[in-house]
């Protein structure tokens, strides 16, 4: 039996939410993202896309392309509020769904056609979301995740599409290879260099050839081009990592300030771990130098959520990682390998007083907000208010 997978995706989600709040933005080129020269475009309206702007483009470049575009700072808590509403509607309607990002879902409707008709069900769901949130949303229905995702791209803006079972290959054939998820800038350039432009060409190529050029990914891309994708819809699960990073207004080499910032970041994330009753077993530190070269270093640790253990590790990793005497543009940390549970107290690593201190500090933060108390050295770092567990990019 073949599967029935729906991919549903909100159209320029951040912009659409901004337009709900401020209707004056409708019909104009709108950019959401940091407004300084160093920011990037997080989302842009279809009007802006006509100027060649796309998301993840540096804001400075976007402004050159379209000087009259309206730039909105963005409000992540507002976005996650709408995302939650939509998640709830989807959860009520379908038996199994996967939330892959703040504005994107996969649903497995296999077996539903007996009772409802999958396309009809998905159409009704889309109408309900539009009615309840006033946000434009698109979906596509097909036999697997890849084809549905490509289909949604074709259905946009604010449309819907069904790719009947058995026609996946024909559907993909006339499209650009760019449309295949996984084909990013580099792969695209590489394939274009080989003279491959349309998915049809990929379909006709032997898999071994692609494997030679792209390695392990080659066979995956080849399978996707054939419309083959057996990956299951994995029910929504919580994030497996939390992270935070900071791009500086001006590149810096002030190590003391950097360390203070890292401590502040580690402290905030550690508090978030504890308040979600989670532990981490992997710490990663990231540095981007002014030449845009990015380096990361990670270390495994015993499961913990205690500040001093994490801060020590972060400092140690930073010292190991920061070797070049070069200006730094961005630093960040990430805690991954998260599990639910409480910290296993250690006989020698901490004193009962330390534990009591953390618990007291957490109580204060809980009551007066997470800015209420912190290590003095880390107070430079102000975390944004949103929750790192619900999948919003910082």
């Amino acid at each position, binding site marked *: 039996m073949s599967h029935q997978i729906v991919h549903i995706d909100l159209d320029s989600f951040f912009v659409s939410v901004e337009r709900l709040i401020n209707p004056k933005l409708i019909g104009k080129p709108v950019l959401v993202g940091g407004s300084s020269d160093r920011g990037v475009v997080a989302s842009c309206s279809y009007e802006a896309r006509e100027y060649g702007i796309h998301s993840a483009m540096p804001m400075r470049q976007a402004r050159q392309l379209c000087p009259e575009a309206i730039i909105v700072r963005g409000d992540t808590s507002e976005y996650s509020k709408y995302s939650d509403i939509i998640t709830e509607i989807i959860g009520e309607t379908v038996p199994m769904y996967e939330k892959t990002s703040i504005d994107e879902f996969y649903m497995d409707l296999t077996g539903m056609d007996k009772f409802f008709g999958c396309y009809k069900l998905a159409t009704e769901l889309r109408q309900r979301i539009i009615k309840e949130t006033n946000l434009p949303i698109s979906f596509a229905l097909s036999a697997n995740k890849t084809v549905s995702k490509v289909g949604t791209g074709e259905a946009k803006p604010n449309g819907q599409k069904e790719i009947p079972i058995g026609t996946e290959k024909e559907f993909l054939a006339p499209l650009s290879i760019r449309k295949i998820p996984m084909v990013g800038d580099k792969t695209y350039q590489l394939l274009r260099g080989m003279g491959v432009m349309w998915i049809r060409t990929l379909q006709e190529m032997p898999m071994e050839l692609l494997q030679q050029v792209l390695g392990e990914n080659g066979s995956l891309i080849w399978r996707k081009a054939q419309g083959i994708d057996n990956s299951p819809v994995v029910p929504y*699960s919580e994030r497996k990592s939390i992270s935070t990073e900071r791009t500086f207004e001006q590149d810096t080499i002030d190590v003391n300030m950097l360390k203070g910032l890292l401590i502040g970041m580690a402290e905030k994330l550690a508090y978030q771990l*504890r*308040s979600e*009753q989670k*532990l981490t077993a992997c710490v990663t530190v990231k540095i981007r130098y002014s030449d845009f070269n990015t380096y990361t270093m990670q270390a495994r640790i015993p*499961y913990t*959520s205690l500040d001093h253990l994490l801060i020590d590790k972060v400092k140690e990793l930073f010292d190991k990682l920061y070797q070049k005497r070069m200006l730094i543009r961005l630093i960040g940390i990430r805690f991954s390998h998260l*599990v*639910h*549970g*409480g*910290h*296993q*107290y*250690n*006989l*020698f*690593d901490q004193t*009962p007083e330390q*534990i*009591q201190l953390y*618990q007291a500090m*957490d*109580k204060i933060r*809980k009551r007066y907000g997470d800015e209420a108390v912190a290590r003095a050295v880390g107070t430079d770092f102000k975390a944004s208010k949103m929750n790192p567990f619900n999948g919003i990019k910082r």
Partner: protein
Amino acid sequence: MIDGVVVSKPIIPILNNFLFDIKDGELKISATDLETTMTTSIKVDAKEDLAIAIPSRTTLDLLKSLPDQPLAFSVNLEKGAVEIKYDAGRFKLTAQKGDEFPKNPGVDGGQKFTIPAKVLQKAITKTVFATSSDELRLNLTGVLVQLSANDITFVATDANRLVRFNRSDIKPGVEDSFILPKKALNLLKASLPNDDTEVTIDFNKSNAHFMFGDVTLVCRLIDEKYPDYKAVIPQDNPNKLLMDRNEFAMSVKRVSITSNKTTHQIRLKLAGSELTISAEDIDFENEAQEKLKCQYEGEDLEIGFNSKYLAEMIGAVDGTEVRLEMSQPNRAGVLLPAVAEENEHILMLVMPMMLNSY
């Protein structure tokens, strides 16, 4: 018995061999990994004295598949060959000269004491499971042995739990301490007879030498400082729980089935004379709860533990009843047998896990 010493990928190839050392009609067979060396001896009929290194794996495989019978070894030192003749046939192996085999380190200038084999075996069994396997904290990967004039104490900890095993009927007569590595302890545990055979232990700053029956084991000591374990053992925990050991163990085991597979966290809730043990795995939405009658003196308390640690410790305590003494949810719990055996004091300590309830 001694094949446990041989490691699968030794640093130098000759460590894949047994050393056969024949002197005055006595055959000594040794195996070593440079850290631990084990030797056993038997009487043989030999024409001359010699020393030769024979591949351990092949020899053992042969010996294991042979029924009991006399074997004839003929050695050609020049060619480096050994021929083993048995009833049905013969076996030919290449061998190396015995003098290439690493020499046993001596324990000069050391001290000496004796302990009955079954006491040593018990001490190892009760402690070695609590050692750490974290190579970064080498001092915790072994068992601390503390000798004094009137008693002997074995201590093992992985920083999350600790076992202290003390015997006041063993009187080493010397004041000293050393850390024995886990591998040597496990080898000893497997080869010590469960009787009163006397084990003689010679030790100096770097090695310890165990002798019992026709076996000797030499191991390098862990040359690290052991943490101050005495400071972390709480005195007089006020909240005392008395439980049937078996019932407690089974209950912890059952409830822990639903605990998180990484943290193994379970929750003990004490109120009046009722103990509630519960666990949950948020990721899979599994949970379990059991209520047990118990004898409890103290304040109502809710405390989290790693069920693996707790179960191992309950299993390692003797007697039909155990006592768990606690103070606060973030302080160590102490597990003791309800009735202490004569001359033997065993104490197990386990650190709790943080329960978020603020």
